[in-house]
C-alpha cells in the first residue's frame, strides 16, 4: 500500500514539466486532507486508547504521586483474593475456549454443508440472535434459565442434580455456568464468521478431495480446518483477551445469588473493589495493567504474526 503509483504509468496531459508540478501539488493536497481526516480520530485514539494506558502505567508505579517501584504489584500479588481470582478466570477460560473452538467449528462445518439455502440462512440467524443480549441482559435471562423453579429447562437442571438456584451457583460449577452463558451470547457470531471463511475455500479444492475419495470428515479435517486456522486463531485470541476481562457475569450473579458468587470472583471485579471500596487507585491500576499487558501482547502478536492483517 505504501508504494506510490508510478507517475510514468498514467497518461500525461500537457507538458511533462507541467504534469509533474500538477502531480506534486495533488500529493501535497492529499497529505493535507489525509492528516485532516485522521485528526479527529487520532484525538480519540489518544484520549481513550493511549492516554488511559499511560495513566494506568503512571498510577501503577506510583503511590500518592511518588515513584513506588513495584510495591503496588507486590501488594496485589500478595492479596489473598488475587490467586483465587486468577484461578477462577483461568478455569473459565479453559472450559469456554475448548467448548467454543470445538463446537463453533463443528457447527459451522455442518451448517456450511447444508444445501438448502433458507435452512442454512435461518439456522445461522437463529444461532446469531442471542448476540443481541450481550452484556447484563443475557445474564439476567440466564438467572431465570438457571433457576430450577422457573426455568424453561428445569428438567435438564434437575437431571443434573440442581434443585435450586444456589446449587446451580456453587463455585465448582461456576466456570461451566459462565462458559455456557458466554457461549450462548457469542458463539453464533463466530459460527457466522467461520461460515464466511468456509465460503472462501474454493469449490474445486473440495471437489478434488471428493474425487480422490475423501469423505466429509476427512475433507473437514485435512482441508477445511487447516484453511480455517487463521480464523480460529483470531477467535481464540479475541475470546481469550475478552475472557480475562470477565466482569458483568459474575457481578450480576453475585448480586442475584446473595453472595454465593463472591464479589471478588474475577480479576476485574477485584480491580473494581480496589478502586471503589478501598479507594486504592494505584492497586486498581496495577491489576488493570496486568490484564491490559496480557491483552496487548496477544493483540500485537496476532496483528504481526497472525496473518489475518497481511494487507497492511
Amino acid at each position, binding site marked *: 500500500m*505504501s508504494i506510490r*503509483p508510478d507517475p510514468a504509468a498514467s497518461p500525461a496531459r500537457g507538458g511533462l514539466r507541467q504534469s509533474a508540478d500538477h502531480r506534486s501539488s495533488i500529493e501535497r493536497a*492529499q*497529505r493535507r*486532507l*489525509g*492528516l485532516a*481526516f*485522521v485528526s*479527529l*480520530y487520532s484525538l*480519540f*485514539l489518544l*484520549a*481513550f*486508547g493511549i492516554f488511559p*494506558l499511560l*495513566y*494506568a502505567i503512571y*498510577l501503577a508505579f506510583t503511590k500518592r504521586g511518588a515513584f513506588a517501584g513495584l510495591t503496588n504489584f507486590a501488594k496485589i500479588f500478595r492479596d489473598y483474593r488475587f490467586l483465587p481470582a486468577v484461578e477462577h478466570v483461568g478455569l473459565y477460560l479453559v472450559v469456554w475456549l475448548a467448548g467454543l473452538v470445538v463446537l463453533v467449528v463443528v*457447527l459451522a462445518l*455442518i*451448517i456450511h*454443508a447444508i*444445501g438448502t439455502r433458507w435452512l442454512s440462512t435461518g*439456522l445461522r*440467524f*437463529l*444461532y*446469531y*440472535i442471542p448476540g*443481541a*443480549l*450481550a*452484556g447484563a441482559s443475557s445474564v*439476567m435471562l440466564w*438467572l*431465570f434459565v438457571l433457576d430450577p423453579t*422457573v*426455568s*424453561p429447562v*428445569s428438567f435438564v437442571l434437575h437431571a443434573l442434580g440442581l434443585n435450586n438456584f444456589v446449587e446451580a451457583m456453587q463455585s465448582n460449577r461456576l466456570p461451566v455456568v459462565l462458559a455456557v452463558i458466554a457461549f*450462548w451470547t457469542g458463539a453464533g457470531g463466530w459460527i457466522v*464468521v*467461520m461460515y464466511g471463511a468456509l465460503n472462501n475455500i474454493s469449490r474445486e479444492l473440495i471437489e478434488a478431495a*471428493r474425487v480422490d475419495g475423501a469423505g466429509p470428515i476427512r475433507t*473437514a479435517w485435512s482441508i477445511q480446518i487447516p484453511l480455517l486456522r487463521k480464523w480460529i486463531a483470531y477467535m481464540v*485470541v*479475541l475470546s481469550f*483477551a475478552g475472557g*480475562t476481562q470477565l466482569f*458483568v457475569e459474575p457481578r450480576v450473579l453475585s*448480586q*442475584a445469588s*446473595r453472595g454465593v458468587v463472591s464479589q471478588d470472583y474475577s480479576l476485574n471485579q477485584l480491580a473494581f473493589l480496589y*478502586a471503589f471500596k478501598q479507594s486504592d487507585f494505584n492497586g486498581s491500576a496495577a491489576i*488493570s495493567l496486568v490484564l491490559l499487558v496480557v*491483552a496487548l501482547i496477544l*493483540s500485537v502478536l496476532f*496483528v504481526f504474526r497472525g496473518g489475518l492483517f497481511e494487507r497492511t
Partner: protein
Amino acid sequence: MACLSAPDRPSRVALTPAEWLGRAFAIVLLVAFALFFVVPLIWLLIAPTKTDRELLLDAPLAFGSLTTLADNWRALMTFQSGLIWTWIVNSAVYCSAALLITLVTSIPAGYALALTEFRGRQTLLAVTLVVMLVPGTALVLPIFLELSAVHLIGNPLAAILPFSFFPFGVYLTYIYFSTALSKDLLDAARIDGAGELQVFARIAMPLATPVVALVAFFNFTGNWNNYFLPYVTLPGRKSPIQVGLAELLSNVPAFNPTNAASTTISLSSLALATLIAVAPVMIVFLFAQRFLVTGLTAGGVKE
C-alpha cells in the same frame, strides 16, 4: 456432513449406514443447538404475560394472559415513577450521540488510511489494529481514572466520548475503501480537476453506504449493550438501561429477600424489563438480518 447437501451430486444415491449415521448425528446436533439458542428467548417473550405464581407453577412455555402483561407493564412503569424510561432515554441519547461522533470520526479516518498518503499512516494503522483487538473492558478502569481526574464522572460525556472511540469502525472503513475503490478512479477525477474534498464527497461517499451501515450497526449494538463502562462512570439516574437492569435486580425480593424496600419488582416485571432493554438491538438485528448471516461480520463479535 457434506452428505447433508451435496447439491451437485446426482440426488437420491443410496446412503451407506455410515453416511446415514453421520447425517442423523448432524441433524440432532443442529436441532439441539437451535433449541439451546432459542428456548431462552422464547421463554423471555412469554414470561411477562404471567404472574410470579404462574411462572413458578405453570408450564414454562405456556402463555399467560394479556391482562397480566398489562399489569406487569404498569408495575414496571410505576417503579420509582418511571425510572426505566429515564434509563432507556439515557441509553438512546448516549448511543445516538456516540454513533454520530463515531461516523464523523471513523469514516474519514478509514478513507484517509486507505487512499491517501501522509506521514505516520503506517503507524496509525498498526496502532489502530492493536487497539482494536484489545477488549474494550480492559481500558474501562484506566478510562474511569482518567475521567475522574478531569471531573467528568456523572456527566453524559463520560459515556458518549469513550463510546465514540471506535477503532474497529476505522478498520472496517479502511478495508472497505481499499478494496471497493481504486486509486486510479480517484486519480481520474483529480485529473479532471476535482479537489481532494470533492473526490471524497462526490466519489467515495456515494459508494460508502454499506460500510457506513456496518460501522453504525456495530457501534450502536456494542454501546447499547455496554455495561462495565457506564456502570463506573455514570451511576444512579444517569445510568443507561443495561446498568439500570442490574439495579432492578436488587429490588426483586425473590433474589434479595433481605430487601425491605417498599417498592419491589416481581420476577415477571424483571423479565419484561429485560425484554424492553434488548428490544432496540433486537429490532436492529431483524433489519440487519440479511447481512448478519453472510459472514461479512468477521470480527464484529468483539466485546
